[in-house]
């Protein structure tokens, strides 16, 4: 009985952890390439969720089917945000950069509330719904599919960054912008690409989460705090680090919440953040 419960808790933690990882990779990618912390990342997630919701409500397209469109749409949002806001603050002091993305967060949240009302929405019948039972372990199919999607997207991103020409150019820009420019890589284009991919990751995460989580304008806030912890633990800028850290944070949150008490689960996760900052500030796989 106890072993069963423990196993069940571990599976739940793993599933939610993979979703945290997916939210965090976009964040860490943008930071890795241009050293800007995107406070509006949770709002990209929210936009992804609403895109799925409206695709479902207006055109009866399932969130899973709509995923490529959600990703493309959010890619466009990311590029537009880069071209209109971020490009102008690249050389600005860090405080201005923080306030710019913070302001963007409030703007997007406010717009969502204005246009789509503060109501909680839900996609009632997704292609993926219901439960899976494996022996004594039970979990939701939507969570399982979302976790699979997270593995797929993170894997794809890793492949892109390390095995393709364009991805390598992005990595090169991240390592040394000056040198990359001298080698003929267009820095501006790379930055825009990073924002596009980062936002698209958040969009895909939103589409996957929308199959089981209520959708409302402030939903990004629930996830973004944990995503920051994941990014710090994984090491700023490291996609592989964010992936591993996401799993670790998910496991610690669910297991800690179960063993110590759910009222402490956020405290446990945030203490982890403090410990990482004290003991290993560069995170698991961050650049020294």
């Amino acid at each position: 009985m106890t072993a069963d419960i423990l196993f069940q808790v571990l599976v739940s933690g793993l599933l939610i952890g993979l979703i945290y990882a997916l939210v965090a990779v976009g964040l860490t990618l943008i930071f890795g390439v241009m050293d800007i912390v995107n406070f509006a990342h949770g709002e990209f997630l929210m936009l992804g969720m609403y895109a799925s919701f409206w695709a479902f409500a207006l055109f009866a397209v399932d969130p899973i089917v709509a995923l490529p469109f959600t990703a493309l749409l959010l890619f466009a949002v990311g590029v537009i945000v880069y071209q209109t806001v971020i490009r102008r603050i690249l050389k600005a002091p860090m405080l201005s950069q923080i306030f710019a993305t913070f302001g963007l967060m409030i703007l997007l949240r406010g717009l969502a509330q204005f246009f789509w009302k503060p109501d909680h929405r839900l996609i009632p019948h997704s292609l993926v719904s219901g439960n899976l039972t494996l022996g004594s372990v039970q979990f939701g199919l939507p969570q399982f599919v979302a976790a699979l999607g997270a593995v797929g997207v993170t894997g794809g991103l890793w492949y892109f960054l390390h095995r393709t020409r364009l991805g390598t150019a992005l990595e090169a820009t991240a390592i040394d912008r000056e040198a990359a420019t001298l080698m003929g890589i267009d820095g501006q284009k790379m930055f825009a690409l990073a924002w596009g991919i980062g936002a698209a990751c958040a969009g895909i995460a939103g589409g996957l989460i929308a199959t089981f989580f209520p959708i409302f304008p402030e939903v990004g806030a629930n996830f973004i705090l944990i995503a920051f912890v994941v990014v710090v633990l994984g090491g700023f800028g490291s996609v592989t680090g964010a992936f591993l850290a996401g799993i670790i944070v998910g496991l610690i949150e669910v297991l800690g919440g179960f063993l110590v008490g759910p009222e402490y689960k956020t405290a446990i996760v945030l203490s982890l953040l403090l410990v990482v900052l004290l003991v290993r500030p560069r995170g698991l796989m961050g650049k020294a």
Partner: protein
Amino acid sequence: MRFPVATTRNWFAKNRFDDTAAPGRRSAITRMLAATALLATTALSGLTFATGTARAEDEIRIGVIYPLTGAAASTGVELKAAAELAAAIVNKEIPAPAGLVAGVGMPHMKGAKIKLVFGDHQGNPQVGATEAERLITSEKVTALTGAYFSNVTATASQVAERYGVPFLNGESSSATLTQRKFKWFFRTTPHDDLFVTNFFTFLNDMEKKTGEQLRSVGLFNENTLWGNETTKLQTKLSEEQKFTIAEKILYPAKTTQMTSEVQRLKAANPAVIMQSSYLGDAILSMKTYKELGFLPKMLLANDAGFNDSEFLKTMGKDGEYIISREVWALDQAERNPLIKQVNDLMRERSGVNFNGNSARAFTGIAVLADAIDRAGSTKPEDIRKALQETNIPASGLIMPWKGVKFDEHGQNELGQGIIVQVQGGQYVTVWPFDVATKPVVYPMPAWDKR
């Protein structure tokens, strides 16, 4: 608009000492100023409906403070409509159903009419206090009622207490309001503590009815003030009434997952879950119950998220069979012809059915009118005495109460909440058994057997 600097300066030079210049623009500015001033006055002092009208000798003025603008405006407008319906019935403008309290006019007041003077508190306790002061000092109301928000009722009734004007509150449920030992404050609605107590009475009743033990409870409350206060009270009542708390969880309302919470509940496996949640976490917890295959015999929800109109819309059949507390339910109209008749009047006049808030606002005015009539005078002290002597039977009310009778702190001791269950997409009354319209579905049917 961008003026060349020189032009702008010329315009100022020309106009500074010349009052007759540009009369069109000047009068437009004056008009705009006047309009702004007017807007500001309305915003500050609320909508004043009765200023300037002649005060007839036989007019009894009652101040009514509600949130008529701002975030809760839609509720405020409903409350206002209910109060006006009550006034119209008292004034015999529309024929009242037989037996309704205050439906007989004001025989002891020689047929005087009551006049409602509205104030708008905009959801703000300070504005509420200012409005109370305005209604008392410049509108010369004989009594006050309102204000829906507990925190506004608190400040507005303080003003009434200072001036020695009776304040009857119909729809604020914070328990502390009647713990202040005010002399001039009366409340018809039951308060939050009573609702929690009701759950335990309900469980006792259910044990008798089903012959099953429902003594092990799991407390599952969100961790802000509301959830914490509820947990404290539930813990105290569990001890007093010999219930065992199998698990006690206070969870953060803003969360991404509730698997650890539900896993703990599942491990403790109580017969009954008592849950206080806002909408988002209510939905997420229900989804997690289903995901992890957890189902208590009974889920007792503490209103809020579970009674939100969005809850059933989003949950569909997964929201079925949860049990929650309420102050009123439309199915009461099926049970009681009086409620049906008054509800029909409400629908005719304002196009909406009563709900828990408007039904209580209606009752507040009716009870106040009844007291003023019995007082036979508009002197505050006489009205206070009459309120203290109020004794209205259940048959005269549109509420599922045992009646109206105030204790020494002004709390109606005959008020009671009802318990509703979602059955077939509706909230139906299942307790107290004497006002129930449907039997309780117990235990909750399994997730896959619905």
